[in-house]
């Protein structure tokens, strides 16, 4: 139940969490109530009625140079990702048994480097999270491992999708901790949905392109550059502060 309440913004929880949990303990929620809580959390984020106001000036978040370096490295990885797709769509076409595909071996080193750089960014985001962040760090660790596998074997799309799923877990944790903005999370969601959605749909036979084109997959995968952008930007900019203040009703 605490997980559902965790969907509410920090300022709201500072003001109402205790009594809300007491209410839920007194009247255990049924599935409709759970849905109502989720709707309430969305409303509290879209139309905040409680705002935090700093009780006292807080010291700046002390941060070494490495998160920013990891951020720049991740953004550079995004450039490499685009370069990977450009090299791939310009690779020679191979026809094998009536099936045409691009021999994108020349793009493999760029692909490897780009994926590793995203893994570095993801680990940096996870390591910057305030405690407790065990779930996010575990997701970051395993995703980076699976990502390495994908970097070495790009045809293992399932590994790639698993790695991006882990990245989303990390990003949601960062958003909940106030480290990521809703815009960054939204960009990541959209990019991953556009990049992985069609490939997943194709893999399970839900979607078949009307005219087979060996370049379609590279165009689709290009949308994933949003992941490098969101992770890199979140690390490069000044750290966001989590609201830790006295709530005031708007």
């Amino acid at each position: 139940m605490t997980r559902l309440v965790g969907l509410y913004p920090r300022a709201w929880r500072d003001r109402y969490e205790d009594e809300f949990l007491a209410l839920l303990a007194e009247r255990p929620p049924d599935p409709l109530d759970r849905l109502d809580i989720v709707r309430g959390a969305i409303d509290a984020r879209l139309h905040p009625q409680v705002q935090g106001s700093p009780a006292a000036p807080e010291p700046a978040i002390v941060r070494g140079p490495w998160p920013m370096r990891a951020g720049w490295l991740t953004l550079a990885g995004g450039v490499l990702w685009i370069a990977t797709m450009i090299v791939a769509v310009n690779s020679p076409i191979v026809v094998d048994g009536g099936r045409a595909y691009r021999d994108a071996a020349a793009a493999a080193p760029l692909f490897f480097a780009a994926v590793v750089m995203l893994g570095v960014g993801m680990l940096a985001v996870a390591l910057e999270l305030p405690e407790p962040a065990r779930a996010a760090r575990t997701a970051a660790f395993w995703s980076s491992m699976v990502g390495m596998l994908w970097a070495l074997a790009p045809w293992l799309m399932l590994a790639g999708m698993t790695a991006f799923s882990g990245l989303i877990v990390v990003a949601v944790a960062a958003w909940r901790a106030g480290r990521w903005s809703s815009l960054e999370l939204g960009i990541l969601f959209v990019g991953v949905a556009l990049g992985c959605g069609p490939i997943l749909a194709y893999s399970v036979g839900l979607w078949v392109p009307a005219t087979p084109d060996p370049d379609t997959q590279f165009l689709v995968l290009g949308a994933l550059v949003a992941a490098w952008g969101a992770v890199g930007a979140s690390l490069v900019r000044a750290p966001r502060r989590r609201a830790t203040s006295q709530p005031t009703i708007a």
Partner: protein
Amino acid sequence: MSQGFTDFGRFAEPSLYILLSLSDGPKHGYAIMADVEEISGVPLGPGTLYGALARLEGRGLIEALEPVERRRPYRLTALGATTLKVQLDGLAGFARTGLERLREAAR
């Protein structure tokens, strides 16, 4: 039905029920939920309850009292009581007009 809460969106009607529920004395969340269900016949979800409570509190129509064992009671403010009276008068006028018209139509 609840013109005074035009900016409350889907929380307008629950807000009126909550004000009505608090009109006979302070209540905490669970008591409000039970009372509203009794008044309206429709259960009030916890997310809706607290969305409405936050709006009512933000506009000074209700105020929070000191919590008792984590359960925080709320009570109607003077502004809340006035708002509730205006709303109920409006509803009474609405009902009166409707009933008169039905009577005239039946003649």
